[in-house]
Each structure stands twice: as C-alpha cells, then as structure tokens.
C-alpha cells in the first residue's frame, strides 16, 4: 500500500498532542460547536509544535487517552479458511463460493492448513506464545452477509497469545530521533471473514457477495497506545511484518487489513473512562485522524459536562469526524458456543511431535520458526550497520512500499558510496515521488538509471548540480540513459586542465576589480571568481579544480 502521507512521529496535529517521553496528555481543546466548525478548526491549530502540548495552565485538567486496536488481516492463501474455494481479489461477485461458503445445510468446515501456518508464523514474529491446543467457537448474529448466522472464530482459546510489537516513534525537535515503543499483543485468533454487503440505496436493496469468506487473523493490541500517531505507527509496523512474512498482503485499500480502535480518555491516576469503538478505518492516515478526533471529542464532551456512551462509531472520511452507528445500538449477545464440527486444533513442536507422524497431517511450530523470513526490525538494523545510515532513514526506506528494494537495486549497480545513494534515494528520488504523489512502482526513473547517474557523479564525470539536471531529464521519461543525456547536454565536467586554466585566465582579465578584492583578502571574492568561471564553463567544471587553478594563479 502506498502511504505517502504517513508520518511516524507525533507531530503537532489538530488537537491531540502526544508526548513521546511518557504517555501522552491531551490538553483541553477549544470549545467547538458544530462538526463543521471542528473541521475548520483543524488548519488553525495544525501547525502548533509539539512542545506546547505540555504547557498546561494552572488548574487545568490533563487528559490521558488510551487506545487499543483490533486488527483483522486477511490471510493470503489460495483457498478459504474452511472451504476449498479460491481466494482472489476483485473476482466477479459470488464466483468463488463453495457449498460451505453459501452455508448450504449439511456442509461442514474443513480447516485450511495454510491459514494455520500463517497464524503460527505471525504469532512467532510477534513474540507470542503459541497455544499447542486451540479451539474454535461460533459467534452468532443475524446479518445478511453472514449466511450461517454465525461466524467461526477462536474466542475461548486462540492460537497465539501474549505477544508484543515494537514500533518506532519519532521524537526530538526535528523528529529525527526514533524512540522504540512496545504494544502488548493480547491474542491472535483465526476466524472466518463474512461476506460483503453492497448497499444500493437508490433501489433500497442490498446485494451480497460471498466471495470474501477467507481466513482472517484477528490481532488484538492491548490499550498501550495514547494517540493516533502511535496507533498508526504500530499498525504500519504490523503491516510491514505481515508483508515480510507473506501471511497477509495487508493492503488496507483492498480491505485486507481492517482496523477497529477502542478509545477512552481519563485523568492520569484515575480509572479508565468509558470507551467507544471506532470502525471503518480504511487507511492508516484516517486511522490516526479518527483516533485523534475521537479523543478530542471525548475530552470536549466530558469538559462540557457530558458523558461518553459505550457505543460503536464510524469514521466519516470526508467530514473527518466520527459518528454513532445507529444500527449497532442495543446490547449484542453473540451467544458463543464451541464449534462442534472442528476438533481442537493441535500443534506440535520438536519435542511433542509423535514419532512417525505424517508431516502432511501435523504442524510443527519449530519447523515454522526456522523458516521465518527476516523481519523489518532486523532489516533496519542491517541497513544501519551495513550502510551507516541513520535509523530514521531505515524507517523511511521500509515504510514506503518498494523503496527498500529500489534502494538495494541501486546499491547493487552503482560504485557510489552508500551514503550518497541513501541521500539521493531519500531526498531527491522520494521528493520527486511525493511531489507528484506517485508510488515507487510508478517511478519514471529505474534503479539502473539512478545507479548509472550516481556512477557518473562518483567518477566526477559530472558535477552534482549537473546530476540534478540529469535526474530531472530522466524524470521526463524520454527513454534516454543518463550517459546519453550528459553527452547531449554536454554536461560532462571539463577534464582538460589546460583549457580550464585558459578560461580562468580570461575571467581574471575580464574582472580586474574582483581579482583586486581577492588580493585585498576579501574572503568572498574568490567564490565570485569561481562562480564566474563555472558560468563560463556552463557549469561543466569542477569547482574544486577551478579553485585550485585560481589560487595558483593568484598566488594565494
């Protein structure tokens, strides 16, 4: 997923101000009237720097926000969790529906091995305890896209419990310092996704697509977060981990990763407040926005003498606010009961594996542990060690989809210093992408082209300003190589010492006053001369070389 707007530190945002050094406190927000007022208010306070958040006037209450998350990740597998029908995004509606998926009477669930392995893998990557025995339950509710009238999930004894997720929050005045934070993972459970309801309000009908009944991993994060940014950063880290593992494509826009947030506010030292659940968060950016909005809404509500209802709220993207979901009113009792058609899910490790067990029939946790791929935190560490880059640069490289691969491909093909490559990829290349709102995969500049460009720079064939010019040309997608551009535009540095000396000589003769200034020890005068020479070379000369020649000629 492209997340160009993603920020991974708690910068000043709207009304929520996160202190990263010790739980966040929320200052009383400006009293707000209608929803539209609140939204307009956003821009006026958005620029407030972080530190103002900690300044509270005497007698003013401090608020602390508590945020927990329930994350549903669609397991990337060829077939569904309990049936053999295929999984494919954007397949024609109801084209991938087995008799079981349609809940025809008499059909029974059969657990997909791949989904179990994905759950174990994810559990291991998130430092969870893997339960060697887990159970499936039925959760009942009537809804048109739930044809059985119940969802099969793991309520009593989930497959993985007690894990943790470490994510980095940016801090410091320039947001240049990364502080690791930990959120506890309560559990990971396997469950079946529902179908999809497509509401046609015009004809007041609802159409049901049952293609979606794929396997889900529900990851429950404990309420260890305190603002939208922290939640967003944690989710982004989880997303990277799932993608690294290949257990989920975790694309929020395609609904492969869905996040519900539980939010409450209270005064530090006092019991937790009543929480609301915010749903319908389909991008990381909206997640952060919705949480911060909801925190401030609750603060305002309480400050104005109101009370918080334990309710489900939906985030409205366009209005930028959360709204109560009326259809979820009333107490839901899901009438959980054990799923009688699935025996307990038993997993083994090297010590408990029965002798002569058919490897097709058993799942070995230790074997899965051995096949775990490199996780993002390790990748970042390696980048820092191998290329000497700053930790926050490694975060940026991983956070942008495809950027790390792009970087590594450039590194592979160029002789330029890694630091140079890092700087070009993160500043120039990423800057261009952001400016035009493009994903890495949509970039007009290939890794090879950038590598070639950096080689030209490294070999001092061109100057860095010429390099920028070449990059600009490359961006135009005219299919030319950097080498071609350099020769067409005659951007090579002048390597001919004699010619350059001749040029310097002419410039000095044409500007006797500047030469005089240099001799009178005006420190800036020499730069002016260098500039004049460079101009005469159409920027094709190396300033260092020019300076050497000038200094020699001026006998400095």
């Amino acid at each position, binding site marked *: 997923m492209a997340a160009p707007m993603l920020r991974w530190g708690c910068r000043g945002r709207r009304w929520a101000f996160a202190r990263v050094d010790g739980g966040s406190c929320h200052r009383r927000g400006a009293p707000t009237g209608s929803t539209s007022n609140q939204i307009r208010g956003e821009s006026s306070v958005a620029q407030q720097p972080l530190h103002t958040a900690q300044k509270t006037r005497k007698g003013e209450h401090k608020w602390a926000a508590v945020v927990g998350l329930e994350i549903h990740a669609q397991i990337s597998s060829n077939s569904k969790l309990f049936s053999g029908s295929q999984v494919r995004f954007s397949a024609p509606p109801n084209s991938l529906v087995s008799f079981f998926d349609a809940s*025809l009477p*008499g059909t*029974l669930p059969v657990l997909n091995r791949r989904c179990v392995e994905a759950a174990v893998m994810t559990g291991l990557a998130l430092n969870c305890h893997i339960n060697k025995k887990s159970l499936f339950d039925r959760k*009942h509710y009537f809804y048109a896209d739930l044809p059985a009238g119940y969802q099969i999930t793991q309520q009593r004894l989930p497959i993985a419990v007690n894990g943790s997720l470490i994510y980095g929050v940016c801090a410091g005045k320039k947001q240049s310092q990364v502080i690791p934070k930990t959120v506890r993972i309560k559990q990971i459970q396997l469950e079946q996704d529902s179908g999809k309801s497509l509401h046609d309000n015009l004809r007041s009908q609802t159409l049901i697509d049952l293609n979606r009944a794929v396997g889900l991993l529900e990851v429950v994060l404990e309420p260890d977060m305190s603002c939208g940014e922290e939640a967003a950063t944690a989710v982004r880290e989880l997303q990277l981990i799932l993608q690294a593992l290949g257990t989920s494509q975790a694309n929020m826009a395609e609904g492969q990763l869905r996040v519900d947030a539980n939010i409450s506010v209270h005064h530090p030292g006092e019991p937790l407040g009543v929480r609301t659940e915010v749903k319908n968060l389909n991008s990381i950016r909206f997640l952060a926005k919705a949480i911060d909005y909801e925190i401030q809404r609750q603060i305002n509500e309480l400050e104005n003498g109101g009370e918080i209802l334990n309710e489900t709220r939906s985030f409205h993207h366009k209005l930028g606010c959360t709204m109560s979901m009326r259809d979820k009113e009333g107490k839901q009792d899901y009438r959980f009961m054990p799923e009688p058609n699935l025996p307990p899910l038993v997993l083994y490790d090297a010590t408990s594996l029965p002798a002569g067990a058919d490897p097709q029939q058993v799942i070995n946790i230790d074997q899965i542990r051995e096949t775990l791929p490199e996780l993002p935190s390790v990748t970042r560490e390696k980048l820092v060690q191998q290329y000497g880059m700053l930790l926050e640069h490694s975060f940026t490289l991983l956070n942008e989809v495809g950027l790390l691969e792009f970087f590594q491909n450039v590194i592979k093909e160029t002789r330029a210093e890694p630091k140079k490559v890092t700087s070009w990829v993160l500043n120039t290349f990423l800057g261009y992408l952001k400016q035009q709102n493009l994903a890495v995969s949509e970039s007009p500049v290939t890794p090879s082209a950038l590598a070639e460009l950096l080689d030209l720079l490294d070999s001092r064939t061109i100057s860095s300003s010429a390099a920028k010019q070449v990059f600009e040309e490359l961006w135009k997608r005219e299919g030319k190589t950097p080498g071609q551009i350099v020769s067409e535009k005659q951007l090579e540095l002048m390597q001919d010492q004699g010619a350059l000396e001749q040029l310097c000589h002419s410039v000095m003769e044409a500007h006797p006053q500047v030469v005089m200034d240099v001799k009178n020890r005006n420190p800036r005068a020499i730069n002016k001369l260098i500039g004049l020479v460079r101009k005469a070379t159409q920027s094709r000369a190396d300033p260092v070389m020019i300076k050497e020649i000038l200094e020699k000629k001026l006998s400095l």
Partner: protein
Amino acid sequence: MLGRSLREVSAALKQGQITPTELCQKCLSLIKKTKFLNAYITVSEEVALKQAEESEKRYKNGQSLGDLDGIPIAVKDNFSTSGIETTCASNMLKGYIPPYNATVVQKLLDQGALLMGKTNLDEFAMGSGSTDGVFGPVKNPWSYSKQYREKRKQNPHSENEDSDWLITGGSSGGSAAAVSAFTCYAALGSDTGGSTRNPAAHCGLVGFKPSYGLVSRHGLIPLVNSMDVPGILTRCVDDAAIVLGALAGPDPRDSTTVHEPINKPFMLPSLADVSKLCIGIPKFQFCILTFCYKEYLVPELSSEVQSLWSKAADLFESEGAKVIEVSLPHTSYSIVCYHVLCTSEVASNMARFDGLQYGHRCDIDVSTEAMYAATRREGFNDVVRGRILSGNFFLLKENYENYFVKAQKVRRLIANDFVNAFNSGVDVLLTPTTLSEAVPYLEFIKEDNRTRSAQDDIFTQAVNMAGLPAVSIPVALSNQGLPIGLQFIGRAFCDQQLLTVAKWFEKQVQFPVIQLQELMDDCSAVLENEKLASVSLKQ
C-alpha cells in the same frame, strides 16, 4: 423376493434370479400400494429406474459393484441428495434441491444401490414419533399386520381400526416403515438421541447407530452436530453390517471422522459360543418396586419389556456368558443434559435458515429483520421454534456457565460412566430400547413432543452423549402382537464386535417376520408372485 434380506436378494441378483429393474419395479409398486403409510416424502422413481438400468448392465457384463449393486434403499429426508428435494419435513426447506450428495448417499450410490426415495421424519428430526413433520405422521406397518390384528380381534374394546393405527417411533420413522413394509432392503436414518434405534424397535427392525466418527456426517442436515450419526435400518444384523461396510471410513469433508482406515468389509463371524463374553446390565433391573427412579429402571418401563430384558440376560448367562450388573450413575441426568446441549446446538444450526439463500422466504420485505422473523415463523413448527428459543436462552452470556458448561461437564461424566463400565471388563451392555411397544397415534399425541422425546429417548440417548455404537434388535412380540426391541451398546469403534454379539442374539430369538398379506390384499399379486412363504419364512 421382497421379503428377503438384503444379503439374500443380493445373492438372487448375482445368480440372475431377478434383475435390478424387476426388483426396482416391484419395490416401486409396493411403495405406491403402501402410500397411506406416509413413509416417503419423495419417491425418486425415475432416478431409481435409471440406476436399476445401469446396475442391470453391470450384472450383464459381470461387473457387479458388490453386495449393494441393484439393491433398493431409502434415505431419510434430512440427508442431502443431489437433484432430489430434501425437506427435513419442514416448510422451511420445501422445494430445496441440494446440489450435492451427502457422503453416505454418495457411497451407497457408488456401490450401485438404487435410491427409491426420501423418507418421512419429524421436522428437522426433532421428535420421537415421526408425527411432527409438515407432511403428516408416519403409520407403523405393524398396525396392519396379521399378528397385531388378530390380537386386537380378541380384545372386545377395540375401536375403529382405521383411526387406531400405531406410530412408528422416530424420528427416522419413515425409514423404518419403508424397510418394515418391504419397500426397500435398507434405509438410512439419523440418530441423535435414539432416532434410528427407537423406530427400529417399534417396527421390528435392526436399528444400528455406529460410533461417532466412524461414518461421515457431511450432507446430513444437522440436529446436534456433536451427537448426530447416520443410522442404518435393516431387517437383520448381517444386512446392517453390509451397509456399514459401505459407509464407514474417514471423509475429508467431515473433520470429525476418524483417520484410521477401517477394516472392510464388515464381515460378521457367527459366534459359536458366548462363554468368553461379558454382558453388562445396568443396575436395578430386578428391582421392581422400589428405587425405580434411578438409572435405567424407570417407572414407565412396561412389564413386558422388563421381562424380555431379564430373559435376554438369562439367555446369555445360560449359554455361558458372564452377566454382571454395572452402574451408570450419571445417566439419569442424561435427558436434562441432552435438553440443554441439543437446544443450544439447534439454536445455532437453525440460524442459517433465514430465507435469504435457499428455502422458504416470506412475502414481507419491509426490512431484513422483519423478513427473517416472518420467514422463520412460517418456516418452522412449534417444536423447532421452541428448541431455538430454549437454546438461545442457554447460550446467553449470563446463562452459558450455568447451563451449557454444566451440561457439558455432565456429558463428560456420562461418557466416563460408560468408560468405567467397559474398563471393568464388560464387552457389551444390554438395555431395553424403548419403554414399551409402539402406541396408537391418538394415544401418542396426548403428550407434547418434549415429554415424548424425553421419555422415548431414555435408554438410547446417553449413548449419543458418549459417541458409542449401539444397536436395537427385535426380540419378540408383545401380548398385543407388536415388536419389542432390546439395545446392545458397545465400546467406541468396536462396532464389529457389537454387531457380532447382536447377530448371535438375533439367531437365538428368531423374531417373527411381519405378516402384511391382509393389509395388502389389493397388492397381494405382488407378494404372491414372490413366494409368500419367504415373507413369513421364520414363523
């Protein structure tokens, strides 16, 4: 020919004494003649004739698929049959045609069996009389037997014969009536609390409930998933073993089937002597007056059944078997425990019938919720709705621990009782199947479905809690000329041993064959052509 056992008719087919098509037509004709029994909901005449034709070709080419090739069978209407309406005797599924075959149905068809039709039952198998289905009650063929009629003539109080017909028991009463009336050689029932054994006892048949996990439930429209087992109704134990041989085995579509490959076929040895056997009799069987509320001796147990039970025990003892009393202290809680577990699963299993995907849908369309409510009100009978209501109550968060979890614990205690009994050296347990012989319909409906189910399942139900194999064997006729069955219960997955003992017992008791000649005066041609002698061969 129609009166023969499955094994006998199979031999006749192999020897070419009769062709599958001839056999099929005779059964179809008898089905029509006995339509008033209401045994079948759907008669799949065309399908059966086509299957018979194919079977006939195989026999001609000497490529018979085995003992079941060309054998007419019937299937309870809660097993999914591809292309054939499957109703569960409910308005909810009227007109529902499954696109797939239940595994057990498919296995029978793969063996060349002829599917005569889908048999009647209590709605969604909830009942013990086969009286509570939307297609009306099933009539017990014994109501029209010579044996019963002659006894009734001796009784001066006998009333209107036509309205005094007997129930079959249930809920697989249609399957029992179909086999009992010679319209097929074997039928599938389902057994959740005794639904196969109970009608077998009332209709003078062998009713076999295999071990849970031995036979696939895929395609069986569930009552209680954790207790449902496809059951087998036949005229003798050997026939049940043949059918079991075709059905048993793991099914990748049912995760609760056992993975160990099953020894096939289920050939039953003829026991020469029973002196190495140990028969367990649940305690108090000889106590007549006091403490009758405990365990298997319940006050409603008829003296005739009691006496036959004792005689059966004596028979084993006299033949050298060890007969011991065993205690099953928790089985008295079985019925109430079953009530909680059954209704809870029913509430869950019935949630899918919402009128959206298949089955009945009401005309109300003001909202989805209103549509659900009206559809379910129209689609389910009072019994089903009552169980859904109870089940949802037991599953409520505030009740779950007090009811469902406790019931599960009691279930474990009941299962442990059986384990303890078998660990003490018992090979099979012997109990009655039902409290008494079949009662007249008018008598039966004086009590409601719940009371009836509780009483009628009393001997059979605990077996389902424990997942054990059990078989009801017809023993003798009552004073009224009606069949009485006794139940043998075996160790889990020792189905073959259980049936072997049952076969020995069956041979000893020589249960009489039902005599339906009078009833079928107008179809006597069918029977007479078939050497009537074979029908009453064992008399």
